[in-house]
């Protein structure tokens, strides 16, 4: 530590000279006071309380997915003549999760609202220009609409080569905002799909994509299983693949609570001793990119040491299921690999079925092809020695984690895992999470209070944007957007997305797909969606391949994209290989930025010296920048990580001429529709027929949109139990998704949100924080699905319906129905004897140790090296080093480095003082962490002659950043594959816009390659070099 620069209490050795220096002048003034010159009146009073009559407004923090409650105070008491202006924000003490607390980002929100970076007026940067020009909203909307129409008319694909109507517009892409409300999200969904946009993504793509993929393929739903407060019920907490204390400080309070109240143990496994480790019982270092070895080693250890909750595993997992004969794993490859295509044929990775289509099982687990035996064989290679050799983790640390996790294999002990992007941002991201999900099944920790696999989502509404399907190939409620080959017709779509139960008596909830889908189509196209036109199926865009962000940038880079609409996103900073991204942007004809603050993306054309060395005059992209509202200036709902939909309220008007996203989208849509009405155009029907029955078509309100997400009856809905009765009257809001119909008599934008705004009103704004037990507060806000707070809670009881642990009684079978303190995630009247299994979204009802054919890179997780491996080999199978199912574009392949040129592992991450690239525009946060730095260990620092605070240059094959060096004991050299390995920590928050010290975009370093299943970029393990430089 640099003691010289930081004075501290212990250093108070005031020298005689200093003392006199301070006090002599003082003494002078004392004497002057004596002589009557200085003030004489000795009053004593505290500062007056500044909020006495200020108006108080409730809101939800806009940064991460903990979803902390806010109290905002505005100038004036609400009188019409007082112009409201937020003067202070603090935590809402009534909020069940945050209980008044806010992290450094939340505590500094005032400076975000009033940031000098806030955009106030529509602006344009004309082609080749070096400056912004203020324009009117009218001009902005007109010009953008004309650009869009011209591009769409020229490039929309009406039908594919097979004659299938595909309404696909690929030459303009749109990014959507994970901090915007659900109401903005759902309106944007309607807008983009009517236009045929499939090149679209939200931040989920660069963030928790693999979570959805891993958890859905294991448990049936892709969301955090438990809730924030529930973490307090854990006996053991593992933080790995994440840094909960820094990224989710207020949610992490419940881990501390578990420590304090239950004596829980907390262990951190991470490349760095981070701020979570600072309060952990144990810390175990690990090489970035080797998590599957560590976790696979745990599976092996649990099996070898019989730390398995057998009753749970046998009853609720697919351990006993028999897998098809063709399945195999050899030398790093699963069966079915097509080397030329670089893809697997997954047909052998599936259950063996009997004549009736029911899965075959062997309850004795003796069958050589049952999942249990395949699992055992697969992980037998992951011995503690192999683990230590490949991860660099000391063996005693690894074994300690095994032991502590193993202790939770009994019904009375429960462990949980808190993870985030440390697991997702790898080419094996999905499989990292899968491995942990399997461990939790083996230990019987899923469905249990204090258990689960807790994905700590990033943005405040990234869960919501995922729920609303704002990803390239998705639709709301985890329905898929139709594919042109598999789903050419509605019947194909419904058949392939409506699975049959694989065991007798299973709930198989996706059997209801037609109800969800038809109701969605009625929301899209209203009266124009009829049974005769297959509910407007032909108007829905059909995809040919996934247009995720890496694919979008590749197309742009190749000059195949003309337009890019960026809503609340900073892709230049958050996409991989920023230098490539900047080149790609320069090839666009037009770009539209919708954002509350100035982003690097919006000024990609400005030369910033070394950190953005572009030739402004040559960049012909026309850039529009539209100012939007922030959270404090709008009503709406956002979904936290625990799936709670929380409603927030507007506290003040936005600055200048800023408008809400809903208004911006509304104006753009109406302008476009007018152009199509007036001038005609290609594939106009989906636009002209779109249901847009808002009171003000140019400004749909949050309330109107929230009601649409819930859904309403378009005709009287008869009660299936008694047809003479009516369940829901025509025009009424639906009580929940169970009333959805597949005959066009219900409209619902997002089936999983059904129940959020019923006839009884807005359920998301409920504020009853009564704890009904185990920290559960069902009266606070509303959680999807059906207000269930802990997913798969049927599994908290044994096969007979009795809670595994009486002290963790969530629900139980009372002889007639399932009931308790949570809404049963189960058919309420299905008796335990029916044999219905707890994972109701899976057609066999099991939690999957073997993920059947859901994932592209294997039914069991296997360790593959990052694309840039510091070893240059994979000691487990040297012929297959990195994942064989990776998608890698040629242009990106050429930009990969090797360990001989770039010997160190670079890993990027967030610091608790900042949120992504926003808070560098927030003064309070810039003060708390002002300048870009990288973290290196003492040994490497010594080798390179780098001292505390020196300037260093970190380079990869793709680019470099210059930053200060933090030399620390907290990053240790590891021994991996018999060699010393150094890791370099690279916090990601800097750029050239904002009030913090200017810096370099970290993603100049990272490679443009993603997780095999979801294309979430590999930010957590790539190769770099480092050198000391003179100051910048």
């Amino acid at each position, binding site marked *: 530590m640099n003691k010289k620069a930081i004075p501290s209490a212990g250093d108070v050795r005031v020298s005689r000279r200093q003392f006199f220096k301070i006090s002599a002048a003082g003494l002078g003034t004392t004497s002057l006071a004596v002589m009557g010159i200085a003030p004489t009146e000795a009053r004593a009073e505290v500062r007056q309380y500044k909020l006495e009559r200020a108006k108080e407004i409730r809101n939800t923090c806009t940064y991460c997915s903990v979803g902390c409650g806010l109290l905002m105070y505005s100038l004036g008491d609400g009188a019409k003549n007082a112009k409201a202006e937020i003067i202070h924000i603090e935590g809402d003490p009534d909020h069940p999760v945050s209980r008044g607390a806010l992290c450094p980002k939340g505590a500094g929100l005032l400076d975000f609202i009033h940031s000098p970076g806030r955009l106030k007026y529509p602006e344009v940067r004309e082609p080749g220009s070096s400056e912004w020009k203020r324009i009117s909203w009218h001009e902005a909307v007109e010009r953008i609409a004309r650009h869009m129409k011209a591009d769409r008319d020229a490039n929309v694909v009406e039908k594919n080569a097979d004659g299938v109507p595909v309404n696909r517009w690929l030459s303009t892409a749109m990014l959507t905002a994970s901090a915007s409300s659900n109401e903005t999200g759902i309106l944007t969904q309607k807008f983009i799909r009517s236009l045929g946009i499939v090149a679209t993504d939200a931040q989920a793509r660069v963030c928790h994509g693999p979570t959805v993929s891993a958890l859905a393929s294991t448990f049936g739903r892709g969301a955090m299983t438990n809730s924030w407060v529930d973490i307090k019920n854990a006996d053991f907490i593992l933080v790995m693949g994440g840094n909960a204390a820094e990224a989710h400080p207020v949610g992490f309070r419940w881990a501390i609570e578990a420590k304090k109240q239950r004596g829980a143990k907390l262990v951190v496994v991470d490349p760095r001793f981070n701020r979570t480790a600072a309060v952990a019982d144990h810390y175990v270092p690990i090489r970035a990119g080797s998590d599957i070895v560590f976790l696979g080693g745990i599976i092996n250890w649990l099996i070898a040491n019989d730390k398995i909750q057998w009753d749970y595993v046998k009853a609720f997992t697919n351990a006993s299921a028999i897998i098809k004969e063709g399945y195999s794993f050899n030398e790093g490859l699963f069966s079915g690999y097509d080397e030329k295509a670089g893809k697997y044929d997954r047909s052998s990775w599936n259950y063996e079925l009997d004549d009736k289509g029911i899965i075959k099982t062997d309850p004795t687990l003796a069958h050589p092809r049952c999942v249990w035996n395949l699992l055992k064989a697969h992980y037998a290679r992951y011995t503690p020695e192999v683990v230590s050799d490949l991860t660099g983790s000391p063996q005693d640390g690894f074994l300690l984690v095994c032991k502590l996790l193993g202790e939770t294999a009994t019904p009375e002990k429960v462990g949980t895992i808190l993870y985030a992007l440390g697991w997702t941002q790898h080419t094996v991201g999905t499989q990292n999470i899968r491995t942990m999900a399997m461990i939790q099944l083996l230990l019987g920790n899923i469905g249990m209070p204090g258990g689960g696999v807790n994905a700590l989502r990033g943005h405040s509404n990234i869960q919501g944007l995922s729920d609303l399907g704002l990803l390239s190939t998705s639709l709301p409620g985890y329905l898929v957007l139709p594919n042109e080959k598999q789903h050419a017709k509605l019947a194909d779509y419904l058949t392939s997305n409506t699975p049959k139960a694989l065991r007798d008596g299973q709930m198989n909830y996706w059997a209801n797909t037609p109800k969800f889908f038809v109701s969605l189509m009625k929301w899209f196209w209203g009266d124009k969606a009829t049974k005769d036109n297959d509910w407007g199926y032909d108007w829905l865009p059909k995809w040919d391949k996934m247009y995720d962000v890496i694919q979008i940038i590749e197309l742009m880079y190749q000059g195949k994209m003309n337009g890019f609409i960026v809503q609340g996103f900073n892709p230049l900073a958050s996409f991989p290989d920023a230098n490539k991204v900047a080149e790609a942007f320069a090839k666009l004809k037009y770009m539209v930025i919708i954002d509350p603050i100035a982003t690097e993306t919006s000024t990609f054309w400005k030369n910033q010296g070394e950190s953005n060395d572009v030739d402004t005059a040559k960049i012909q992209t026309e850039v529009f920048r539209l100012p939007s509202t922030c959270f404090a200036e709008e009503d709406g709902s956002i979904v936290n990580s625990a799936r709670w939909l929380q409603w927030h309220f507007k506290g003040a008007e936005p600055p200048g001429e800023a408008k809400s996203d809903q208004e911006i989208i509304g104006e753009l849509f109406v302008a476009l529709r007018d152009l199509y009405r007036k001038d005609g155009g290609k594939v106009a029907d989906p636009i002209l027929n779109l249901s847009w029955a808002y009171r003000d078509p140019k400004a749909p309100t949050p309330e109107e949109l929230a009601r649409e997400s819930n859904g309403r009856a378009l005709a009287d809905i008869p009660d299936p139990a008694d047809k003479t009765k009516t369940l829901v009257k025509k025009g009424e809001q639906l009580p929940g998704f169970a009333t959805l119909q597949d005959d066009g008599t219900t409209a619902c934008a997002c089936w999983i949100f059904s129940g959020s705004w019923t006839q009884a009103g807005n359920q998301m704004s409920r504020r009853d924080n009564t704890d009904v037990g185990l920290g559960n507060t069902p009266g606070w806000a509303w959680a999807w699905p059906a207000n269930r707070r802990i997913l798969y809670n049927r599994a908290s009881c044994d096969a007979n319906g009795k809670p595994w642990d009486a002290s963790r009684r969530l629900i139980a079978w009372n002889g007639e129905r399932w009931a308790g303190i949570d809404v049963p995630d189960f058919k309420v009247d299905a008796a335990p004897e029916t044999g219905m299994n707890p994972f109701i979204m899976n057609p066999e009802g099991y939690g999957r140790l073997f993920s059947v054919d859901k994932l592209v890179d294997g039914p069991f997780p296997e360790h593959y090296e990052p694309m840039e491996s510091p070893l240059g080999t994979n000691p487990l199978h040297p012929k297959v080093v990195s994942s064989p199912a990776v998608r890698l574009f040629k242009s990106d392949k050429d930009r990969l480095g090797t360990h001989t040129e770039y010997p160190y592992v670079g890993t990027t991450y967030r610091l608790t003082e900042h949120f992504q690239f926003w808070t560098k525009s927030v003064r309070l946060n810039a003060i708390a962490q002002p*300048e870009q730095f990288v973290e290196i260990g003492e040994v490497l620092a010594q080798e390179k002659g780098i001292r505390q605070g020196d300037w260093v240059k970190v380079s990869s094959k793709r680019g470099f950043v210059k930053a200060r060096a933090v030399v620390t004991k907290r990053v240790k050299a590891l021994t991996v594959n018999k060699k010393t390995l150094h890791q370099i920590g690279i916090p990601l928050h800097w750029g050239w816009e904002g009030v913090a010290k200017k810096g370099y975009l970290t993603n100049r370093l990272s490679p443009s390659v993603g997780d095999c299943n979801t294309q979430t970029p590999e930010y957590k393990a790539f190769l770099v070099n480092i050198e000391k430089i003179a100051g910048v």
Partner: protein
Amino acid sequence: MPLQSLDILRRSATTTPSTQARKPIEVAKLIDVTTCIGCKACQVACSEWNDLREDVGSCIGVYDNPIDLSAQAWTVMRFTETEENGKLEWLIRKDGCMHCADPGCLKSCPSPGAIIQYKNGIVDFNEENCIGCGYCVTGCPFNVPRISKEDSKAYKCSLCSDRVAVGQEPACVKTCPTGAIQFGSKEDMKEVAATRIADLKKRGYDNAGLYDPEGVGGTHVMYVLHHADKPQLYHNLPKNPTISPLVSLWKGATKPLATLALAGIALGSLFHYVAKGPNEVSKEIEDEIEKEDAQ
């Protein structure tokens, strides 16, 4: 203002006794260093509530920012990496005013009513009355008060006396994500600390303990430390803080003498004071001291 919601115990440089009839409860802030994640929410909330904004600084190779207390930063996190019992520890201590029961700042303050100690334990600065002499800086055993470059007045944590006066907890306490900062009666806080210490001892921290140093009469900001036997580990938290003997010297028996002796010099530098403000040492004194030091 004797009849405000916080009763005054004593005021600097004032001989008039304060009212004594009311007996409000003594409050305290407990900082459990062992559950502090160093997120700096308390720093930010403090600045936000108190309308302070320090300059945007630099990274000097550590996580500490702002790197020191100032008139614009009343609390800062101090990060220390250490290896104790063969185990790496990252000790993070929230630094700021300790609100001593026997406050060295108040005792050394020559300006009437610039420093007030309330009966609930809060030691508050009233900048209106501050003459910027810097005695409080010298008098503080924790090196906390800072003189503002802008107005040459002394500033430090008020324990959010404005919030406490209306029944709220200080801003830093409320915002603390992990509950590492708590607020309540001093008695309750000691009990909370005892529970924490028992838990820490169970986890192998044999020397866990409470920091409530007697040398300053106890404090109204207390720490739970894993290594209470070595407070210096926490970025040099003093082991036995006491008020500087120099303060006693100036403010004790020799005060009249000293005042007389230096009154002449003060008078001599009157024009200097008027021209340059009170926080400047006159050139003559400085030269004189330098000469002495050189000998």
